[in-house]
């Protein structure tokens, strides 16, 4: 069975090739269609995927942050205020949004992550509400409920090739693509190197980790801050893409949506899970919001998450179906252990 052997020898390669082909397809997507609705869905999914990756990173340390949308709001407000009200060019303020969001995450983390656990979830949920209330009522800076109308980034000219953000959604698509790739690689690197292992040990067995000399709070704070930076960047970019920033964009529901994307996608994979979850849930939400039934999105999302938790348990969201599919293709019987479930993982 030469063909069969060949087939089996490449069993780890074929899924990767398929993923690579998908990435290339997505990269070339604007060549296939420039339909604004499709591209907008993809752009938004990508941005939410970055936020969900941040959430997953915090989840890796065993903490459940319910205020991630607040960091998107902070990022969005920082970039909107810097560009529109202070006249600073977009890209520096985009980076500033990440930095300030990260600093706020650092401050909150230093205070709250000492206790961790449920206190942390409660404080972050309250923090999300606080950011919304402050944004709504601090009219002199945030313009309250009216919101700030953002401007498109200035055109970038490289040689005689000009990237004009004001012209259409394609430049936004490519920058989203770039952003997702960069943050995906970053989170993937964090997850597979020593620090990711430490994160998982902090979550799996805090007492043992502490006795092995891991400073629990520092690692939790590192994860929370990194997540804050990327979530802030995602928020800043999302707001620019939407063209308006107001307090209603990032409320508790959005924080929970970020969590839902991670859960549905599966938190056993730090990059794949959030991307799949964000794409599936954002498209589903987009479809549901066009139905003439009020609140159906809440109902369906809530039901989907509960069903995923019951039937694809322990962090194996939709992303695990991918592995299952290939194991079925190769008729493999494989016992495997999920990351985060094993007590100690050595790098």
């Amino acid at each position: 069975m030469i063909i069969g052997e060949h087939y089996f020898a490449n069993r780890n390669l074929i899924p990767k090739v398929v993923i690579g082909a998908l990435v290339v397809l997505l990269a070339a997507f604007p060549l296939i269609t420039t339909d604004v609705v499709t591209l907008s869905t993809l752009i938004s999914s990508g941005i939410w995927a970055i936020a969900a990756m941040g959430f997953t990173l915090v989840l890796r340390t065993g903490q459940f942050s319910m205020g991630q949308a607040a960091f998107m709001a902070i990022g969005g407000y920082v970039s909107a205020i810097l560009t529109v009200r202070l006249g600073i060019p977009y890209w520096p303020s985009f980076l500033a949004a990440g930095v300030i969001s990260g600093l706020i995450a650092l401050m909150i983390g230093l205070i709250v992550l000492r206790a961790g656990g449920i206190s942390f979830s409660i404080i972050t949920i309250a923090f999300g509400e606080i950011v919304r209330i402050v944004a709504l009522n601090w009219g002199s800076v945030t313009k309250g409920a009216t919101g700030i109308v953002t401007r498109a980034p200035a055109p970038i000219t490289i040689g005689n090739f000009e990237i004009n953000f004001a012209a259409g959604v394609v430049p936004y698509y490519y920058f989203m693509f770039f952003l997702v790739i960069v943050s995906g690689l970053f989170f993937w690197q964090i997850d597979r190197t020593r620090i990711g292992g430490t994160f998982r040990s902090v979550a799996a067995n805090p007492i043992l980790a502490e006795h092995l000399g891991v400073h629990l709070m520092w690692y939790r704070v590192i994860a929370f801050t990194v997540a804050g930076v990327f979530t802030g960047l995602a928020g800043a970019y999302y707001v620019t893409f939407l063209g308006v920033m107001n307090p209603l964009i990032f409320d508790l529901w959005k924080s929970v949506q970020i969590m839902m994307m991670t859960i549905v996608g599966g938190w056993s994979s730090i990059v794949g899970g959030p991307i799949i979850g964000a794409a599936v849930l954002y498209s589903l939400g987009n479809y549901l919001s066009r139905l003439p039934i009020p609140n159906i999105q809440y109902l369906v999302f809530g039901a989907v998450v509960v069903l995923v938790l019951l039937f694809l348990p322990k962090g194996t969201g939709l992303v695990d179906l991918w592995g299952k599919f290939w194991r079925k293709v190769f008729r493999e019987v494989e016992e495997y252990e999920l990351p985060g479930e094993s007590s100690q993982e050595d790098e």
Partner: protein
Amino acid sequence: MPPAGIWIDGLVQSCIYMTMAFGMVLVFSILGILNWAHGQFYMLGGFVVYYAVTAAGIPFPLSLLISGVIVGGLGMVVEKVIIERLTGPGYGLLAVTAATMALIFFFEGAAGMAFGLMAKGMATVLPGVLDMSSFSISYQKIAVIAFTLIIMVAMYIVLNRTKIGKAIRATAQQPDAASLYGVSVGRVSLIVMGIGCALAAMAGGIMGPVQSVDPFMGRIPMIMSLLAIVIGGLGSLTGAIAGGIILGLLNSVIAYKISYFSEVVLFVMVIAILLIRPQGLFGTGAK
């Protein structure tokens, strides 16, 4: 010094936060999880009372009990179908936290679809105002305060004088030992979840006439009672009651002084308390 009306409003809020936080801590002490959808049971209770009073014409006190029974039963179903299946060995807190978070929106969506998004008032229940010479207080607010006192006394009796109360306290202290002495921990969890959700539902029902009933009414009480739990100390019933009183009164008084930033001040206060005492005011430490 704020006028008496502000203090009374604060007291009414405290009563609700107290009842909610009490139920949450009760559930937490047995199941070891926070029921994040507690505020939505409060909302559902409000709707049950609203429809019992306006559509079915059932007297208000009786419809409170009905809402307690119905929503308490729903809480038991949630415990049996979802929470119990997600809290076995090998599951962290993550799965059950995510599931109850998702339930928040499931219930809000369901209520929005079933009952509509409009706020429904039932000001006709218990009309009238008790006029003291210096201030006045409506009967509805008196009802809230009286209801909370009754509930607290009833819960005290149930927890300290009955057999099931003893079982609950034993399970909270040491589940393994309790089950060795013939206490069914699963059944205690079910009962406690039922009690917690019934308390929330009745709180929602009693608040119905004071405010109004809408699908999103549960969010603020949920967040406030969560903060009350953090202030009081996770797992401490006394702490939940004290935290509820502190938060309700402070929220009302601060809101009187500086209008809408009161939540921010409360939040900063909670953070300050966490900085000084990470285990909360009445907490005993790790739990």
